[in-house]
């Protein structure tokens, strides 16, 4: 049983040094320039809100929307946490771009064999028991890597220890069914660009309600249509019979009204 | 739509040519169909007037 991994991002500890982005770019072989937004070459980025720096990347949701919408299963969720992408399976339908509630996947529009790009959650490092590259690079401990349940306890502990310092909410604990990226913030999350309308139900549940009815439609619908064919077929037979009666071809039967 | 900065680049050239041709086709089609619509309107106008 592999333990679920997560990262705790404490916004009050972030000083905006961008070491996480640098470490990530190095680990993934991306060009080393500093970038302010998520892009094909920046899997994580800091955005500044007044004096606070907010780090965003793929949330590696527990019940990922992108995984559920991909028609060919190019995106998969592993037990340890990372949502991985297989470009060889991808057909380029871009449903994942449309569906992701955090607007994470970026598309290689200028390529003739495009893929999506996003944070991978360093699966090879995690498999070796190491931290993610960004957590390793962070000098202040604003990004902390660990087991999800332990980090949740840690976050709750921090809130309780200094109640005035944090908003009493761990973003990502239950949002869209829970994500691997947990956030603590000194100000309300809406002010930092977080979408707080997302709710606790994972998005895939919305589609499930429709898709689960497919077998019903097929079975009930099939029987219904066959039945209607059968009943109306009888009526045409009866009409043909009655018209031949009128012509006098067939003597009346005792059952006729 | 049109990249005039590095037009020597074969890909940019192809894009510019394609968009140029499509632009011309757009203008031609719009003018053609509008003219026909106006013509039809005018002809009908004349024929209904002629009846009186």
């Amino acid at each position, binding site marked *: 049983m592999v333990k679920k991994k997560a990262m705790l991002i404490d916004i009050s500890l972030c000083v905006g040094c961008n070491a996480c982005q640098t470490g990530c770019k190095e680990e993934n072989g991306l060009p080393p320039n500093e970038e302010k937004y998520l892009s094909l070459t920046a899997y994580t980025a800091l955005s500044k809100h007044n004096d606070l720096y907010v780090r965003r990347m793929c949330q590696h949701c527990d019940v990922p*929307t992108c995984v*559920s*919408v*991909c028609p*060919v*299963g190019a995106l998969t969720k592993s037990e340890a946490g990372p949502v991985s992408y297989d470009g060889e*399976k*991808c*057909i*380029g*339908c*871009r*449903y994942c771009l*449309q*569906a992701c*509630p955090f*607007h994470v*996947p970026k*598309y290689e*529009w*200028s*390529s*003739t*064999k*495009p893929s999506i790009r996003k944070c991978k959650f360093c699966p090879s490092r995690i498999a070796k028991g190491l931290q993610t590259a960004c957590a390793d690079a962070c000098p202040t401990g604003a990004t902390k890597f660990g087991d999800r349940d332990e980090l949740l306890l840690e976050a709750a502990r921090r809130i309780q220890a200094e109640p005035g310092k944090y908003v009493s909410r761990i973003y990502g604990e239950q949002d869209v069914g829970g994500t691997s990226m947990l956030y603590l913030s000194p100000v309300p999350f809406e002010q930092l660009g977080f*979408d707080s309308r997302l709710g606790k139900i994972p*998005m*895939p549940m*919305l*589609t*499930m*309600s*429709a*898709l689960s009815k*497919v077998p019903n*439609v*097929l079975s009930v*619908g*099939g029987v219904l*249509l066959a039945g*209607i*064919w059968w009943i*109306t*077929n009888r*009526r045409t037979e009866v009409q043909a019979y009655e018209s031949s009666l009128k012509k006098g071809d067939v003597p009346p039967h005792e059952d006729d009204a | *739509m049109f990249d005039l900065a590095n037009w020597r680049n074969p890909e940019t050239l*192809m*894009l510019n040519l*394609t*968009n140029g041709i*499509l632009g011309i*086709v*757009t203008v*031609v*089609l719009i003018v*053609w*169909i509008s003219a*026909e*619509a106006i*013509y039809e309107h005018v002809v009908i106008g004349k024929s209904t007037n002629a009846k009186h």
Partner: protein
Amino acid sequence: MRTLRLPRITAGWRPIATILILAGALAAVARFTLGLGATTNLSDEFPWGLWIGFDFLGIGLAASGFTIVAAVHLFHAKEYEPIVRPAILTAFIGYLLVVLVLIIDLGRPDHFWHPLVMWNPHSVMCEISWCLMLYTTVLSLEFAPIILEKFNIHSPIKWIHAISLPFMIFGVLLSTLHQSSFGSLYLIVPNRLHALWYTPMLPVLFFISCIASGLSMVVLESLIFSRKGRPFLPTRLRANLAKIIALALAVYFVVRIQDLLSRGAFREMTTLTYYSVAFYAEILIGFVIPFSMLVFEKVRTSHSGLYSASLMVVLGFAINRMNTAITGLERYPSQVYFPSMIEIFIMLGITAIGFSAFSFIAEYLPVFTTAEAGQAPHQNEALNRVQEPLLLPPECENPRPS
């Protein structure tokens, strides 16, 4: 009331169709050699655009196939037999066009066959891909007798007729599923699709509206192909179809408005925004006005009235699908999506191919004749005039009584 009609083109629509097809081909070459980024205005903020909107539209208009087949072959409304073949042809061409545009829109068109062997049962898009593939197969089986008749190959026809009932039932079920599934695609983005369009009832709404649009396409076709001679479908039957369309429009309207009000969208409906304008455009043109026209028997039995009403249903339906697929989605303050010329011309070119294929097939194959084997198309004089502008509304002087 001034009737809505397309202008008569002196030289015929054929040259224009040819220009559109050639321009579309050029645009397609550009798209495949240069990639989506250079040739479209799609972006990470607007990953789906005109082509996906066109697919939504095309699928609904091709709904004629399953509705008429169900009516004639499952509900035994045999008097509508003459329009079964045009309806199947419309559906067949429509689905092929949609699949073509879908493949062009894919980032990796070389991987288009992947859903056949890799599937994710949780994905609505996977279900749609399968339904489309299976249903196109069913359509080709339903269409095959028309080709076989032309070449007088009769034995496979008997075989096809023997297995036709289960296939037709399967076809109607598949259509019900994917027509509603196109709506289900958007169930997963309540945070992106505007309140005027997002609802858990999307699949139901898509299904009801596709019945109206599919039948309207059939009515339009029967009007267009009824020139200079006896009407292709008796006026009374056409009027009955119009009644069903009116009913579907009414049901849709009630379900939609009721749903909107119960979800608290009243404010959105009564504030003047880009979205509410788009909403009223689709509701008025596609539902309210045609419905109020079709309740009158005079309209249902007149060529020009029926032509205008069904054209409006189709137009309103197009606006509705475009709104759901493009306009109603999240808007970014600094960015707006408008299709590029290449996107537009690929769509127009493929549409032109569809219309041309329809008229070509209608002229040379027994589509607008009765289903009896051996009825040669050249016996039907009216068909020889099919060469002329096809999109012309019929002469609207006294419609010939059937």
